[in-house]
């Protein structure tokens, strides 16, 4: 018995599903500075049953002041490690960025449905905007492992902020970078880069994660080209266990934390608020 694994001993009478819903306080094993504003945090993790994260799933991260959702950006079931990749955008993420290796965080999850990665032999276009590359990275690695052919469009505002382009290139994906300012690769928005690509190349499947203002037009283009796929959404989250209703989307009522965060193209067409608005903590609508 050691203190960390002791903690799970302490939970051993909760049923499995319940145990997942209590933050496990664990040490940050490694921190990787990915870009000036983005860091990856690696943790040791017991890989059993529902505890094993899959690409597209997320965890709730507790810094003892607040708790927020973060996608799983890195999964090594064999080594018993997973990672999250965090962009500094406000108080919580700033606090995470101030942490050092060995510091502790509470983690519960993984939650949500995740991407379909059984895409053997399929030509897949994976598109990530900004820190939206986090789940795209774990997706791409898993899809490649399952013998999909993956092209990645890796978009950022500027060269320094490109995330995981090298990592995925090294894994065998073809990576198209694209920056708003043209500092690396295509100059312009991911939307345009993708349009160019799909007009010249055949794809069987697309996987998209990024700001909804990016995903909305992308969805239009991909649909127009009859490329089905999956889209990962974000909404303000409280419980992450499907009870509070905070993350439900119009008109279907689906919970981003349970039925999502990944939705098929067909499902996306039913989510009328997609790309239009989301809701704040109080429940008020905020238009993009």
């Amino acid at each position, binding site marked *: 018995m050691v*203190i*960390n694994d*002791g*903690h799970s001993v*302490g939970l051993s*009478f*909760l049923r499995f*599903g*319940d*145990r*997942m*819903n*209590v*933050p496990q*306080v664990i040490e940050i094993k490694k921190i990787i500075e990915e870009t000036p504003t983005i860091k990856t945090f690696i943790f040791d993790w017991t890989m059993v049953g529902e505890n094993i994260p899959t690409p597209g799933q997320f965890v*709730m991260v*507790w810094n*003892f*002041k*607040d*708790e*927020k959702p973060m996608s799983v950006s890195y999964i090594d079931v064999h080594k018993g490690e997973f990672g999250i990749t965090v962009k500094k955008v406000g108080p919580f993420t700033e606090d995470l960025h101030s942490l050092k290796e060995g510091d*502790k965080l*509470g983690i519960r999850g993984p939650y949500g449905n995740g991407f379909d990665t059984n895409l053997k032999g399929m030509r897949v276009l994976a598109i990530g905007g900004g820190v939206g590359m986090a789940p795209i990275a774990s997706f791409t690695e898993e899809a490649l492992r399952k013998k999909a052919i993956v092209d990645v469009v890796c978009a950022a505002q500027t060269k320094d902020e490109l995330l995981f382009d090298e990592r995925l290139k090294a894994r065998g994906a073809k990576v198209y970078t694209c920056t708003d300012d043209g500092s690396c690769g295509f100059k312009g928005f991911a939307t345009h880069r993708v349009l160019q690509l799909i007009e010249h190349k055949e794809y069987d499947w697309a996987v998209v994660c990024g700001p909804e203002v990016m995903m909305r037009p992308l969805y239009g283009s991909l649909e127009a080209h009859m490329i089905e796929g999956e889209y990962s959404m974000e909404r303000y*989250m*409280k*419980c*992450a*266990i*499907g*009870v*509070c*209703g*905070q993350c*439900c*989307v*119009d*008109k*279907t*009522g*689906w*919970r981003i934390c*349970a039925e999502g965060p990944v939705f098929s193209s067909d499902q996306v067409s039913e989510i009328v608020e997609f790309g239009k608005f989301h*809701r*704040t*903590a*109080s*429940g*008020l*609508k905020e238009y993009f």
Partner: protein
Amino acid sequence: MLKTNLCGVRLKNPLMLAAGVLGSHASSLNWILESGAGAVVSKSFSKDPNDGYKNPTTVAVEGGIINAIGLSSPGVEAFKEELEDVNRVKGRSIASIYGANPEEFAYVAGKVEDLVDMIELNVSCPHAMEGYGASIGQNPKLTYDVVNAVKEAVDVPVLAKLTPNVTDISEIAVSAENAGADGLTLINSLGPGMKIDIVTGNPILANKFGGMSGPAIKPIAVRCVYDAYEATDIPIVGVGGIRNYADVVEFLYAGASAVQIGTSIMYEGPEIFGRISSDLEEFIEDSEFDSIKDMVGFGHK
């Protein structure tokens, strides 16, 4: 066979969504209605917008969860839009409201009464009128005043939802009845409870304490319904820990005319309403009962 009636409002079945669970948007309320609920209760909302507490707002405990969402609400004006979109053809719509004093309760109730079939008063929130941290529902007089003010303001039936965290729930139930409540909803979440992380010593919920819900609280909820059934003559809606049809039967026997389901949606999804409906129907067919009404209070003998 499952058809029943609550305070004059017809229900296709006695299963309702509990307040605060998937109840923030018309879209999720409609989903629950389509999943087979006879009625839905909205998340409690107030006059003005409120962000609620910081996360963590929920954590699992043995047999359920504790939560301190902190009554987040977009305010009545924004919430009216949601209520307008609830599909009242599919089932009944009930607004759960809260406020700091009787006037606020009455104001919010008046704003929405045309949009709903009933109003449920969440009198379990901390109140502003006295200095200490108790809640309206822990004080018979304040409960009376709130129910009374709302009853004078609206024509739709009014349910008073009470907290179990009192020395004597019958006393509060009788107060609410005397003030004119058309029915009672029992129970709001229990405790509160708390959970402390043993590695860091931090209480896990940002608010430290949170109300307990889920299967673990069922015995206490059933007892509260049983007590209130003996103490009052108005219909009771039972809530707390229901996860299957047998739990529903237990609440009906204890004296509930209808029931609400909240936390178990976490384990079972919205499909829980359809599943329990059909199991309950089968139970009644195999039993000597002819209707839900027959079963109400059967445990009192």
